[in-house]
C-alpha cells in the first residue's frame, strides 16, 4: 500500500461506511426473520468497524532515517472489522465471526521474517484481509446442550479452567472442539475437549499471533443436594509448548488440575456461602511442580446492611499460560484459568495468585432509599513476588452512591489508598525513604449524572491516581507522580452524545509529562447501532482488569467506530 494511495483508500472506506449507516438508519433494531420451505429462521448480525489515523507510530515503533535520526510525527492507518453472524432455527444455532485487520503506511520491514525482524516490528502490522475467527454450531435443549466448534467454558470460580472474553484487554479465547452439557433433575455434567483459539490481532498495537492450538480437555459434575447445596467436582488438563519449541514441535509441557466446589446460595435467608479448592500438577522443562489453591466467600444481609467476605490462599499456584511466543507482550495475559484475586477489579497487581494469602471485607449500608455507603478493606501477604520478597498489601477504600430526581441523576464518588510494604528482605525491595513502604497508590473515582429537561443530561466520570515509590527513586529520594482520566459528556437521549476528555500522567519515565486532550461525538443510529468519531489523544500505561495487567500504548489521532446490530 503506497503512501499516496492510503488516504484516498481510507476516505473511500469512510464514505462507504457512512453510506451504509445512512441506509441502515431507518432500520429497527431487531434480527432478520425469513422462511425457507415453511421453516422460520432468524439471522442476527453484529458488525463492528474501527478505522483510525494514528499519528503516534512512535508509541509503538521507533522509526529512524538512514542517518539514524529518529523520525518524529510518523503515522499509520488501520482498519479493523468484526462481523458476527448467527443463524437460528428451532433449537439449533449456527454462529461465525469474520475478522479483518488491514494497515496502511506502516514502517518498512513490518511483519517480516520472525528470525530476522527486530521485536518492535515482529508480527506487527501483518495484513489479515478476511479470516475466520470463530465458528460453531450448537443444539440447546433444556436437558442437553451440544456444541461443535468454538465455545467458552468456566469451571467453578475459574481456579482450574476459565476461557472467557475480557474485551478490556483484547482477550477472547475459546476452545475449538466439542462441548456437551447434560442436565437431569439434580445432576448436571459438562464435558469439553478441543484446542485453544485466541483473538489473533491486538487492536491497540497491531500485533498478531497465530493460534496456539494448545490441547485442553476437562469435565465437571454438579450435584444439587437437599435443594440447598451445589457440590461440584471438576478436572482439566492440557499440553503446551515449552520455551523455544517451534509451533510444529510435539508439545512436551503440560498441566493437570482438579478441584471441588461447594456452593450454598441460601444457607439461611440471610447467608450465602461458597468455597473451592484446587490442586495443580505442572510438567515444564523436564521438571515437575505442584501447587494448590483455596478460595472462599460469604455474604450476609441484615436489613439495610450487607457484608461480603472473601479469602484466598494460593501456594505455588501458576497461571495456565498459552504457547504464544512470550516476546509478544500483548498476548502474555492470555491464560486458561482465572482464579479470583479478591482485590479491587481495577487494581494493579504484581503477583495476584502464585503465592499469596489474605482476606477482603466489604460492607454496604443502604442509609436511605436514595443513598448507599460502602467501605472495604483487604490484607494480603505475597510470598511469590519476582524478587522472592515477602510483600504485604493493605487496601482500604470507601464510597457512596447518591441519587436524586427519582433516580434520574446520581453521584458515585469513591476513593482509598493502597499500601504495599516491603517484607522480610528489605534490601531487595527499595522502600520509600523513611518508611518500609514499597509504594502507595491513592485513588479517587467519580461518576456523576445530572438529568436535564428535554431528554438532555450532563455527565462526568473519571479517576485520579496519586502514586509514590514503586522503586523509582533511590535510598534518599522519594518519587511521586499522578495520572488519571477526566471526561465530561452532554447527552441527548437517545440520539447524540458529545464528550470531551483530558488524560494525564506525570510518571517519571523516559518521556516528559504527558497531557492528552480529546473529543468525540456519537450518533445512535438505532438503540443498538451507533457511529462514533473520536479525535485527540489517550494516555498509555498499565491497565489491569481482574488481576490481569497489560501495557497499552498511547493513542493520538482520529478514530471512526461503527457498530451495526441487526
Amino acid at each position, binding site marked *: *500500500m503506497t503512501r499516496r*494511495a492510503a488516504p484516498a483508500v481510507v476516505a473511500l*472506506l469512510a464514505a*462507504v461506511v457512512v453510506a451504509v449507516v445512512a*441506509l*441502515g438508519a431507518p432500520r*429497527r*433494531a*431487531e*434480527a*432478520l*426473520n425469513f422462511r425457507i420451505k415453511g421453516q422460520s429462521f432468524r439471522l442476527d*448480525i453484529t*458488525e*463492528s468497524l474501527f478505522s483510525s489515523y494514528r499519528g503516534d507510530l512512535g508509541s509503538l515503533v521507533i522509526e529512524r532515517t538512514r542517518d539514524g535520526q529518529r523520525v518524529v510525527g510518523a503515522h499509520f492507518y488501520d*482498519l479493523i*472489522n468484526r462481523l458476527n453472524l*448467527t443463524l*437460528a432455527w428451532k433449537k439449533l444455532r449456527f*454462529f461465525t465471526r469474520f475478522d*479483518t485487520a*488491514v494497515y*496502511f503506511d506502516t514502517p518498512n520491514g513490518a511483519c517480516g521474517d520472525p528470525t530476522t525482524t527486530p521485536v518492535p516490528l515482529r508480527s506487527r502490522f501483518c495484513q489479515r*484481509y*478476511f*479470516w475466520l475467527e470463530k465458528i460453531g454450531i450448537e443444539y*440447546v435443549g*433444556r436437558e442437553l*446442550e451440544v456444541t461443535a466448534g468454538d465455545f*467458552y*467454558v*468456566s469451571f467453578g*470460580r*475459574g481456579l482450574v479452567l*476459565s476461557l*472467557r472474553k475480557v474485551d478490556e484487554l483484547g482477550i477472547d479465547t475459546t476452545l475449538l472442539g466439542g462441548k456437551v452439557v447434560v442436565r437431569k433433575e439434580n445432576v448436571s455434567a459438562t464435558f469439553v475437549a478441543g484446542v485453544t483459539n485466541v483473538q489473533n490481532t491486538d487492536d491497540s498495537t497491531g500485533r498478531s499471533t497465530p493460534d496456539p492450538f494448545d490441547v485442553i480437555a476437562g469435565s465437571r459434575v454438579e450435584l*444439587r443436594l437437599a435443594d440447598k447445596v*451445589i457440590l461440584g467436582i471438576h478436572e482439566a488438563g492440557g499440553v503446551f509448548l515449552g520455551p523455544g519449541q517451534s509451533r510444529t514441535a510435539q508439545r512436551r509441557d503440560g498441566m493437570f488440575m482438579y478441584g471441588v466446589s461447594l*456452593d450454598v*446460595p*441460601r444457607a439461611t435467608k440471610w447467608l450465602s456461602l461458597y468455597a473451592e479448592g484446587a490442586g495443580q500438577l505442572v510438567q515444564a522443562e523436564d521438571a515437575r511442580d505442584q501447587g494448590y489453591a483455596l478460595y472462599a466467600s460469604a455474604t450476609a*444481609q441484615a436489613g439495610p446492611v*450487607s457484608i*461480603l467476605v472473601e479469602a484466598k490462599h494460593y501456594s505455588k499456584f501458576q497461571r495456565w499460560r498459552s504457547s504464544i511466543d512470550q516476546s509478544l507482550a500483548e498476548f502474555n495475559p492470555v491464560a486458561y484459568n482465572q482464579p*479470583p*484475586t479478591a482485590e479491587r*477489579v481495577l487494581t494493579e497487581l504484581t503477583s495476584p495468585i502464585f503465592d499469596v494469602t489474605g482476606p477482603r471485607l*466489604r460492607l454496604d449500608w*443502604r442509609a436511605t432509599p436514595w443513598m448507599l455507603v460502602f467501605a472495604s478493606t483487604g490484607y494480603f501477604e505475597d510470598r511469590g513476588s519476582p524478587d522472592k520478597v515477602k510483600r504485604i498489601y493493605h487496601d482500604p477504600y470507601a464510597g457512596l452512591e447518591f441519587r436524586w430526581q427519582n*433516580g*434520574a441523576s446520581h453521584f458515585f464518588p469513591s476513593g482509598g489508598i493502597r499500601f504495599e510494604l516491603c517484607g522480610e528482605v528489605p534490601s531487595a525491595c527499595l522502600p520509600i525513604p523513611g518508611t518500609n513502604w514499597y509504594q502507595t497508590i491513592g485513588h479517587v473515582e467519580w461518576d456523576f449524572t445530572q*438529568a436535564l429537561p428535554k431528554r438532555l*443530561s450532563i455527565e462526568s466520570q473519571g479517576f485520579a491516581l496519586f502514586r509514590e515509590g514503586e522503586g523509582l527513586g533511590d535510598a534518599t529520594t522519594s518519587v511521586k507522580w499522578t495520572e488519571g482520566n477526566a471526561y465530561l459528556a452532554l*447527552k441527548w*437521549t437517545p440520539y447524540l*452524545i458529545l464528550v470531551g476528555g483530558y488524560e494525564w500522567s506525570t510518571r517519571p519515565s523516559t518521556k516528559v509529562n504527558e497531557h492528552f486532550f480529546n473529543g468525540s461525538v456519537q450518533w445512535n443510529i438505532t438503540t*443498538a447501532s451507533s457511529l462514533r468519531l473520536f479525535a485527540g489523544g489517550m494516555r498509555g500505561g498499565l491497565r489491569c482488569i*481482574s488481576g490481569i495487567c497489560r501495557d497499552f500504548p498511547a493513542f493520538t489521532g482520529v478514530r471512526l467506530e461503527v457498530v451495526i*446490530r*441487526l
Partner: protein
Amino acid sequence: MIVRRLPAALLALVVPLSLTLLLTACPASSSTGGPGAKSGASASGDDMKAGAQATDFTLRDSEGRNVSLSDYLGKQVVLIDFWATWCVPCQAAIPHLKQLYESRKDKGFVVLGIAMDGPETIAQVPTFVQRYQMSFPVLLDEETKVVNVYNPKRTAPLSLLIDKAGKIVKIRSGYNAGDEKLIESEVDALLQ
C-alpha cells in the same frame, strides 16, 4: 481465506458492509408499511410488530435454581438485561428496571437480569442484588454462554425486549438518563 493486494483491502471492507447493506435493504417478513396499511398506530407500536423467535437458554439464578427462557417465552413480555457489578451505567439503570418490573409484573411482564460477572467479581453479585433490592430473577452467566448468543460485543448494559409471542422486538445498547421512560412506553405497548 487470504486475498492479496490493494483490491483485497477494499474487498475486506466492502464484503462485510455489502452484506450488511443487502440485508438492511431487505424488508422484514412482517413489515408494517405498504399500501392500505393502517396508519395512526404509535411509532413504538409499529416498530414492534416485526421480530424473531428468541433462542432458548438455561442458566442458574442467584439462588442456585436452573431457569430457562422458555419458562417465560410465549407467556409473558420479557426484558432480558445484561449487566455486571463493575458496570456503572448498570447501577444507574437497575433501580428503574426494578420499578418497572414491580409495577407491571402482575400484568404479565418479567425482567431477567443476566449477570456477566466472571470468576473475579461473581462473589459480589449476591450483595449487589441485595443492595439494589433486585426483585426480578437474576441469572448468572459466568461462562458468557448466553452473552455469546445475544451480546457478542459484551456490551453492558444491553437489553432485549421480547413480546408475548416470543419474538425479539427491541435491542437497546447502553443506558442514558431518560431511557427508562422509553423502555416503559415500549413495554406498555406490548402489554396492551
